């Protein structure tokens, strides 16, 4: 008797494309079956007087508990009444109950949802509180109270249930309004002449229809279930046949004739399930995806493939695309810390197509060397970083010709093997500090766990190391920070914590993915020089992914320029700035040099040392 959380249904903001949605709906076989069942039930109830072979209330005591026959296709009940006729008429009660409940729930929930979402403040506070109150009431007991004075007619009970279900639609509408409002306020300044209210209500109404339809199908199902439960308890109109009432009567003779519970039970179950399936089908057709991850067989295969660093995917040929990467630096030196050849990353784009985000990437990093990877957003920089770490999303299709880390091939190795490398050989500093710390654990716990796991050290030892690390990365009060939760830190502090975490198990290669992009300009320089210091102190290799050529000039030894998934040029930094070969590199440099010629100048001399 519960309905799934309204929050789990995403809001569809796209303009209505009714036809396409209708086509998508019709293509869903389950949805069509469900809709057909509902149409049959509705028609059966509507035309019950024409369709029913007998008077549903006609008691024939000589013909009780008959099995199916031509005369009585579903047999007769304990009073000799025709089961099929009663089923057909019973549908009327269920449908009426559903309509009353859903109309009440909508009439109350939607307007209050609009008001609460739009005016916020106290209206929101009060109505949200009332919604919570209604949601914590046991419905049957409230119905018992109502029945005590208003009788067990369909209207009072279903209106009450509609009120109790209204928080569901209230919350849904409210969240839609809040979303639309926060989006529209951005544009509101540009829209002149129209009042916010009118815009919002127009937009909201177009957006809210879909999700409300989905919820309505659930509430309708709930109405049928609860109403039949009330009938089962004896709260109902005994003169009107109903599915719940039939179950209640069947229960009286249950141990003599248990088969009587099947027909009304099936009627309820089929109708309610059809409503649920129909709701889900509408949701799918509207594109209100219910948080389903890719579930196809292809995606599963891809998950396996992606779990292996740069391993040939099961579905892909072992040797990747023969397209030779532009500007191959004549093979990596054999003593390179990491060398990657021909790394390719693609994503299934539906219809069996693939979207290639990285093609034939070849690079190497030496011990103590900083390799910059530059390129504009969308050029595949982060894909390269995660590809090397083996941490691409499950649906990625990854392949490579060669991946060697510290003299050992990691191509096609097990996930367990890779877990052994991560943290201790190869580590990662993320871009966005706040979203990369687990909000539910203290900084100390997050720092200590990998150390204890990877280094096998005791709790106390891990604690001491964590404190020393925090002090090293410039955290002013390490013991206090150990106890803090991520939301209590500033972005700059969080990034320092993440850097401490990355180097905590003495990795030999550090991959930093735009480590300063999300930070305040004032703390960027500090974080960057911390990275550089740690890299030099520990003689680590580092791959620094960035879009900022200034950063490259500051701390990189060599640079790989990435454009649309391909490495177009790899060179020592001074050479690149002095003599860019590829037209794209020149373009990139020109745009930056215009802004900061002095910085590049400084870099040329600074990194030559």
């Amino acid at each position, binding site marked *: 008797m*519960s309905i799934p959380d309204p*929050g789990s249904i995403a809001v569809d903001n796209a303009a209505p494309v009714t036809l396409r949605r209708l086509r998508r709906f019709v293509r869903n076989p389950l949805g069509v079956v469900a809709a057909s069942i509902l149409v049959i039930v509705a028609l059966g109830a509507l035309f019950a007087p024409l369709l029913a072979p007998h008077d549903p209330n006609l008691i024939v005591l000589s013909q009780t508990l008959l099995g199916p026959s031509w005369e009585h296709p579903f047999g007769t009940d304990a009073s000799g009444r025709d089961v099929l006729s009663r089923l057909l008429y019973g549908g009327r009660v269920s449908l009426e109950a559903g309509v009353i409940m859903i109309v009440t729930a909508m009439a109350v929930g939607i307007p209050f949802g609009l008001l609460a979402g739009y005016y916020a403040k106290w209206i929101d506070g009060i109505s949200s509180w009332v919604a919570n109150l209604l949601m914590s009431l046991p419905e049957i*007991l409230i119905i018992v109270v109502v029945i005590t004075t208003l009788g067990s007619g369909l209207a009072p009970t279903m209106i009450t249930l509609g009120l109790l279900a209204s928080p569901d639609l209230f919350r849904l509408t409210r969240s839609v309004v809040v979303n639309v409002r926060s989006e529209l306020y951005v544009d509101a300044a540009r829209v002149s002449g129209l009042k916010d209210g009118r815009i919002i209500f127009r937009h909201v109404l177009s957006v809210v229809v879909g999700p409300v339809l989905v919820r309505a199908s659930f509430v309708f199902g709930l109405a049928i279930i609860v109403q039949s439960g009330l009938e089962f308890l004896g709260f109902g109109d005994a003169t009107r046949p109903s599915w719940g009432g039939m179950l209640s009567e069947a229960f009286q003779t249950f141990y003599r004739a248990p088969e009587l519970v099947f027909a009304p039970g099936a009627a309820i179950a089929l109708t309610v*399930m059809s409503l649920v399936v129909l709701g889900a089908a509408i949701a799918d057709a509207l594109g209100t995806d219910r948080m389903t991850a890719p579930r196809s067989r292809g995606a599963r295969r891809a998950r396996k493939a992606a779990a292996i660093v740069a391993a040939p995917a099961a579905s892909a040929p072992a040797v990747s695309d023969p397209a030779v990467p532009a500007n191959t630096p004549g093979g990596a030196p054999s003593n390179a810390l990491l060398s990657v050849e021909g790394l390719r990353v693609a994503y299934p784009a539906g219809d069996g197509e693939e979207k290639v985000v990285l093609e034939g990437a070849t690079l190497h990093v030496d011990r103590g060397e900083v390799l910059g990877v530059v390129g504009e957003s969308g050029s595949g920089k982060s894909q390269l970083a995660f590809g090397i770490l083996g941490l691409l999303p499950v649906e990625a299709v990854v392949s490579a010709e060669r991946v060697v880390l510290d003299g050992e091939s990691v191509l096609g190795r097990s996930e367990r093997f890779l877990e052994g490398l991560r*943290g201790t050989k190869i580590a990662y500093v993320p871009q966005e500090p706040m979203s990369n710390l687990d909000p539910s654990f203290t900084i100390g716990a997050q720092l200590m766990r990998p150390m204890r796991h990877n280094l096998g050290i005791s709790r106390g030892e891990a604690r001491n190391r964590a404190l020393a690390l925090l002090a090293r990365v410039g955290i002013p009060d390490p013991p206090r920070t150990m106890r803090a939760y991520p939301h209590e830190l500033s972005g700059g502090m969080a990034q320092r914590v993440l850097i401490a*975490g990355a180097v905590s198990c003495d990795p030999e290669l550090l991959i930093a993915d735009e480590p300063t992009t999300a930070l305040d300009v004032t703390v960027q320089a500090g974080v960057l020089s911390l990275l550089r210091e740690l890299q030099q102190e520990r003689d680590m290799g580092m791959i620094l992914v960035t879009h900022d050529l200034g950063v490259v000039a500051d701390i990189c030894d060599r640079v790989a320029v990435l454009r649309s998934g391909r490495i177009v040029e790899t060179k020592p930094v001074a050479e690149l700035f002095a003599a860019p070969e590829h037209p794209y590199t020149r373009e990139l440099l020109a745009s930056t040099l215009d802004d900061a010629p002095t910085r590049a100048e400084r870099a040329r001399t600074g990194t030559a040392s």
Partner: protein
Amino acid sequence: MVRFVLRRLLAGVFLAWVVVTGMFFFLALTGADPARGAVGLYATDDQLAAKRAQLGLDRPLLEQYWDWLSHAVRGDLGTSSAQNTDVLELLVTRLPVTVSLAIGAVLVAAIIGATLGLIAAIRPGAIDRILQIVMVLGFGLPNFWIAMILALLFAVRLGWFPATGYIPFLDSPVGWLSSIVLPVIALSIGSIAAIAQQLRTSVITVSSQDYVRTLRSRGLPARQILLTNVLRNAAPPALTMLSLQFIAAMSGAAIVERVFGLSGIGSVAINASGNSDIPVIMGVLLFTVLLIVTVNLVIDIAYSALNPKVRAA
């Protein structure tokens, strides 16, 4: 933490007060007449008036309300207007039946639902698909219908469990368990599906968070991350679902009781409704709402233990 619990406790008590007060006045103002319920339809006007005076219904409404509330606060829920029995005593004998069913169903649903949801989230495919079907089935089949089928199969045909009757825990723990197994299963199926679905959604959402990837980059095994970090961050919405399921189970228990001939709060409420027995109805309401408030409080505390931001707020 203490302040958090106190504030939640106060909010819960306030909610319970609003509900019982609202219901008290609703009953009185819509014309529920316990005196008529007690003396029957064919009593004379004099008898009715005498009963009204005896029950104190001739006093002003506010005075009646204050009388009820001030006694209720001290644990005195008055006397049934129809049967002359003490309401508290009645509830204390009947409530354990319903509470056993509801709490049993929620515990079963939490354990099985969480396991299924977790498995469905990490092993897409057959299990996930089966879960989706169970979800629809669990919602579509009325729990009292499931109860009847279970009773028929496992009590009547196979004789594994008693078909009817409740055995108090203190009389025989094993008997108690076997007397509630079938109703608890019937009640929990819908909740299992709802909790599994919720946890599946939130595990999938949390698994794609940046910090999960970062934890993996530190060399922690995927399974350890799933069972500690992902599960802990995915649990709060599932906990909220759990408290909704408890409320639903209280309602469901009132219906399923009848199938197994258990006389819990459901049958008390139905009888009381027929007799307009306001003291009993109010007692049932108060107990149920307080129970729900308590369960919500426990879940809130668990929620805050999982979510440091809530605790700090």
